[in-house]
């Protein structure tokens, strides 16, 4: 077997050194009745055979690379510069572990320090951690952190928050013993959260741009939260938006929980992605997750270490701020390399390009009979109302080789009032020809 270096001669020599007749005798602590012989699974395969089998499965899918695609709803197709994937596959990054031993992991620690700085900058917050699993779990962690900070236990969640994010908070609320109040889905982007805050509220959670695409300035909400002693949590599902849109920090957010997939990371059927988590300096000791800090070595030279680990499970055990251990190191690396290649000029241009493409898409769609663009404001994704259920339209478009967006009913299947709504996203990857093809096909299927 190509991954196993021991030869039979090695094994015999080693068993002799150990002083046992066979490997089986090393498993003597396993109870007799729990040992089993033949596994009912296929035998090993060479590289070529494995490639063939997995390629055959891949070939059955319609990838966004060979279809005009307008899918978003929390995962976005962007062009990732070639050097990103090349660099993250360097073995020294790919095959190293969490940087517990700083003298031999300065590479990982330095890029995580840069990553934390970049995240804090684009969110306009004081500090960021070294990543979470994804935007949705980061949001749930943000709510639990707000509960700790405020010593309260009621979260209020916007109807413009991604349904998956809402569902995960609901799961943690049930098991963690706190209350989560969910406002109904808000396709118009006009809900009022101000009157939902009282002196029991630990936090209000909004998303910007919202799940339905609307942009809102939450500065007044931030002030109301502060007055009531609650925290404002702003979730961002499309991180590229922060190249063009007023950042949560400038609105007065206390915690930002974001999905970083758009930079550096492939769609990959939903994961792995990278959760971004940023907050105010005063709350740093209540943060979940790993943090890298700057220090000096015994020669006085600048270096980096994992720090404030007394918050974490491997030190604090049942009193930890979170149980998170492994996070999204390599996805964070892809994120930070992509953002470094973009730089200030590239990042803002990328955001403008996304917005302009989406505006063109919206203009073209509003000329299609029966299609109504719901949004006044949006970044690169918006909602349209169709004259019939969106799922049937999307199915018909897929038959024509077009991935025409995400029906809201995919995420809200029970809410019949939302059945005709479709979410469409446009990024720098969408060409005029893509938009033409979509418009043409829509006219056929509506």
């Amino acid at each position, binding site marked *: 077997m*190509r991954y196993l*270096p021991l030869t039979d001669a090695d094994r015999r020599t080693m068993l002799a*050194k*150990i*002083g046992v007749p066979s490997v089986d005798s*090393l*498993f003597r602590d*396993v*109870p007799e009745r729990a040992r089993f012989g033949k596994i009912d699974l296929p035998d*090993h*395969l060479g590289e070529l055979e*494995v*490639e063939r089998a*997995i390629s055959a499965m*891949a070939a059955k*899918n*319609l990838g966004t690379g*060979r279809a005009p695609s307008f899918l978003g709803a*929390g995962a976005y197709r962007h062009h990732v510069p070639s050097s990103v*994937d090349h660099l993250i*596959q360097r*073995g*020294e990054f790919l*095959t190293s572990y969490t*940087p517990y*031993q700083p003298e031999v992991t*300065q590479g*990982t620690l330095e890029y995580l320090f840069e990553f934390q700085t970049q995240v804090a900058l684009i969110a306009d917050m004081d500090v960021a951690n*070294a990543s979470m699993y*994804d935007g949705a779990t980061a949001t749930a962690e943000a709510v639990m952190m707000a509960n700790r900070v405020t010593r309260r236990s009621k979260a209020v969640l916007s109807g413009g928050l991604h349904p998956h994010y809402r*569902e*995960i908070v609901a799961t943690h609320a049930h098991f963690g013993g706190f209350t989560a109040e969910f406002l109904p889905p808000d396709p118009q982007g006009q809900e009022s959260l101000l009157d939902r805050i009282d002196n029991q509220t630990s936090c209000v959670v909004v998303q910007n741009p919202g799940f339905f695409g609307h942009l809102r300035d939450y500065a007044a909400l931030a002030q109301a939260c502060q007055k009531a002693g609650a925290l404002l949590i702003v979730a961002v599902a499309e991180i590229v938006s922060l190249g*063009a849109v007023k950042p949560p920090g400038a609105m007065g957010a206390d915690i930002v929980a974001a999905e970083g997939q758009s930079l550096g990371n492939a*769609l*990959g*059927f939903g994961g792995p992605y990278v959760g971004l988590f940023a907050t105010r300096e005063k709350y740093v000791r209540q943060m979940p997750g790993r943090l890298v*800090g700057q220090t*000096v070595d*015994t020669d006085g030279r600048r*270096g980096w*270490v994992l720090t404030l680990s007394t918050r974490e499970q491997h030190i604090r*055990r*049942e009193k*930890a701020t979170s149980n*998170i251990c*492994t996070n999204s190191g390599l*996805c964070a690396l892809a994120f930070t390399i992509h953002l*470094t290649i*973009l*730089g*200030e000029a*590239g*990042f*803002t241009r990328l955001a*403008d390009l996304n917005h302009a*493409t989406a505006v063109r898409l*919206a203009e073209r769609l509003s000329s299609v009979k029966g299609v109504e663009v719901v949004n006044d404001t949006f970044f690169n994704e918006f909602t349209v109302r169709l004259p019939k259920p969106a799922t049937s339209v999307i199915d018909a478009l*897929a038959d024509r080789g077009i991935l025409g967006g995400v029906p809201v009913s*995919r*995420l809200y299947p029970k809410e019949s009032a939302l059945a005709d709504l479709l979410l469409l996203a446009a990024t720098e990857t969408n060409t005029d020809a893509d938009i033409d093809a979509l418009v043409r096909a829509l006219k056929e299927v509506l």
Partner: protein
Amino acid sequence: MQRDPVTGTFSGNRGLQIEEPLIFEQDAPGRTGVDLPEPPQVKSRLGGIERKGAIGLPGLSEPQVVRHYTRLSQKNYAIDTGLYPLGSCTMKHNPRLNEKMVRLPGLADLHPLQPVKTVQGALELIDQLAHWLKTLTGMPAVALSPGAGAHGELCGIMAIRAAHEAKGEGHRKRILVPESAHGTNPATAAGVGYAVDPIPANERGRVDLAAFKAKLGADVAGIMITNPNTCGLFENDIMEIAEAIHGVGAYFYGDGANFNAIVGRVRPGDLGVDCMHINLHKTFSTPHGGGGPGAGPVVLSAALAPFAPLPYVVHGPNGFDLVERNDHALASGQAFGRLKSFHGQMGMFVRAVAYMMSHGGDGLRQVANDAVLNANYLMASLKDEMTPAFEGPCMHEALFDDDFLKNTDVSTLDIAKAMIDEGYHPMTMYFPLVVHGALLIEPTETESKDSLDQFIAVMRGLARRAKSGDTAYFHAAPTLTPRRRLDETAAARKPVLRWKPSPITGEAAE
């Protein structure tokens, strides 16, 4: 130019050890590493919520970026560069075939919310992963969405609590956790609303059976056991423990962190486990990536299978289907909803399936055999110079205490730092907590005998050197690395968690 007082060179570099400033210190305003087209002129729909002012991101060109990250990579130790004996982390070879597979068009470019009929191959792959995991563990169901081991623990303990609540036994408040457990175990139980009740280890490094039985009662919800445990030992009373825990109506959570030692030889389902997470980034070789991403699927017994979180793949009339909502079960308390967005760590599923197919059932059994053989060979070759924590054969990792360092004024930490100068990543140190000054060494099955022999010679040399009284050497180590010991106390006392422009260069970054 002044010479650097530490290195004696003008550059501050030392041969191939190159100093690399932060990206923020390489900024030129306006410079970029991409050539994006001018956006078309459109009427803005941002609604007046534009970003104002500079963000502060640095501008670098592509060659600078490539060099920066290449240089950073060269400051890292990695499996690709050497034996990585971190106990309990299973740092085995990461096959590059797996990387190639995950990047295939039709997998890498799939959106998670495409119509199900356009992703049948992806669902087939998930179904295959589920089949392999269920077969290898002897369990009837698997929840695939958890994002890492600790997330899998949450999933399992939530399933346990949901099952108790569905039976009207929500009053159960205690989870038993051995003192040798990973920190994630007690943190998880607490996060799901349980009180953590620790069980001591016995003098053989296993769960103290009498202490365990004394803790049993009607308010116990479950027990979390890592097997093989964090001492690298198989819990030989495991089936008796499972029967006793089931006897009081509680469930058995198996922490699968150390599944690599028994894969293909022991099915946790046969031991009485009700649920167990599997770290795909350990046993099934998806890369650790400097701290993730991982994947932590959870296998479930028939009793807990109904409580698996969403989503899951089912066989429908038109091929595979994906169940993403289950409102009825949720409302009736028969399920607990969602733990992660979309469908889990698909990229890790692809890599794990490639690894499983490559090994096959026959090869996976050999994985366990060689992992255990390598660890025992290390143990046998080091036991006269170092002090094994417990007697008898170990499983996939060899645990030593610091008794061999008694009266030397050299600590486990000093040994670890001296190993770095020898070109090795240190073993896991000071864990498990039940062993004084623990040194936990896991070589994995992908090390050759030559590699082990070299490592053994170094460890024997270091042990003898420590005993010979050469303490100054150990206290100073490492001296050959890009950085020497770092001041972690200062880092925590006055945290600097991000770069900020210094007053002098501030205008360049603003």
